[in-house]
């Protein structure tokens, strides 16, 4: 089973957050990238755009379909990872680190309270994978 880093928080839509002060770096989990398969296309917001918790902040496409990227927090986008728009394969090869997608300046850090820690996310993924 996948190992999900302890220093990240996770939502049930398979995005992770790394928190430093009011800044939240966001990406998709290793479980998500494996489920999607090879990522073919990616759409991300631009700097200064707003994102809302539990709302799409972009979309990703693999041969299997289009998947909306659901934001774990609300706030303003202050940085977008240009490296993954140049080399989209990073999302598959290093989703928890260099495959980060956006950095958001959070409006309400209390939203983090609703997210899962690595152990809880691990259990969630096990349940989801077992659904079928």
């Amino acid at each position: 089973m996948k190992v999900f880093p302890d220093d990240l928080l996770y939502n049930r839509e398979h995005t992770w957050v790394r928190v430093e002060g009011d800044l939240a770096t966001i990406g998709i989990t290793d479980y998500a990238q494996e489920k999607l398969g090879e990522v073919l296309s990616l759409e991300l917001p631009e700097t200064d755009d707003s994102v809302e918790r539990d709302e799409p902040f972009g979309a990703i496409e693999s041969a299997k379909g289009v998947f909306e990227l659901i934001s774990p927090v609300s706030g303003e986008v202050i940085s977008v990872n240009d490296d993954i728009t140049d080399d989209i394969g990073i999302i598959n090869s290093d989703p928890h680190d260099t495959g980060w997608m956006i950095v958001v300046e959070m409006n309400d850090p209390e939203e983090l309270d609703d997210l899962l820690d690595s152990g809880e996310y691990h259990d969630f993924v096990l349940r989801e994978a077992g659904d079928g």
Partner: protein
Amino acid sequence: MQWRFLPFERLGAFENMAIDEAIFRFHQHEDMPPTLRFYGWKFPTVSLGYFQDVEKEVDIEACRRKNIPVVRRPTGGKAVLHEGDVTYAVVGRDSNPLFPADILGTYRVISRCIAGGLALLGIEAEMEGNSRAPNGDSLKASCFSSPSRYELLVKNRKICGSAQVRSHGIFLQHGSILMEFNPFKTCDVMLPRSGDYERQILRMKQSVTSVSEHTDRAVDVGMVCRALMTGFEKTLGIELVKGELSPEEEEIKAVLMTHKYMNERWNMEGGCRAWI
């Protein structure tokens, strides 16, 4: 288990996409039964995949000359010229035990339902098990010219192409079953074209087929829909119960139709922020 069934109706391109997405969106917030919808296209229409670059894939000038609207789907995949086909849409939950947890499992299950329906018409369709790279001189933009996993083929030619979008634990899968196929019409509106038009036509003929080619009697849309309904009911062990859009779905549909699917920017450029 009961599913909601929305019977076949022919509507315009923008309304068709708005309805599919409205069902998908409402499902994300309410405990709705899985929904199966059949529909057709009031006018010949080109639908594009979510991420496709319209300028690289579709001959926009040709579409304008022929009054063929171009609409961008909420789902992935490639461009399709719809004309007389039967399109289906299924909206359900990832966690529905009828569908395996893996994404391709949903394609597989729905393909079995459609194959079961087509079998009642005497058409033996089978799932494409492995991706097949499109031939270099095929129309790469066209959904029907390049079979992908778990789509339906008859004698190795594609009869039904499908695409998905997923969000908040809900999936929308829609796809078209060709009643008839005219490769000239498809080649006339798709890009890129190589210089060898005849070869493109031949390639399309070799890779795409339709219901009319495989039945020795006249089969109309009503017969196809009835057969597909039976295919879904028997394959999944469900009961399809005729229904309609809820008032909330109608409201979502109206907003999506006006602000998204009739929005030139969404259809030409795409992007989730193109219509907000």
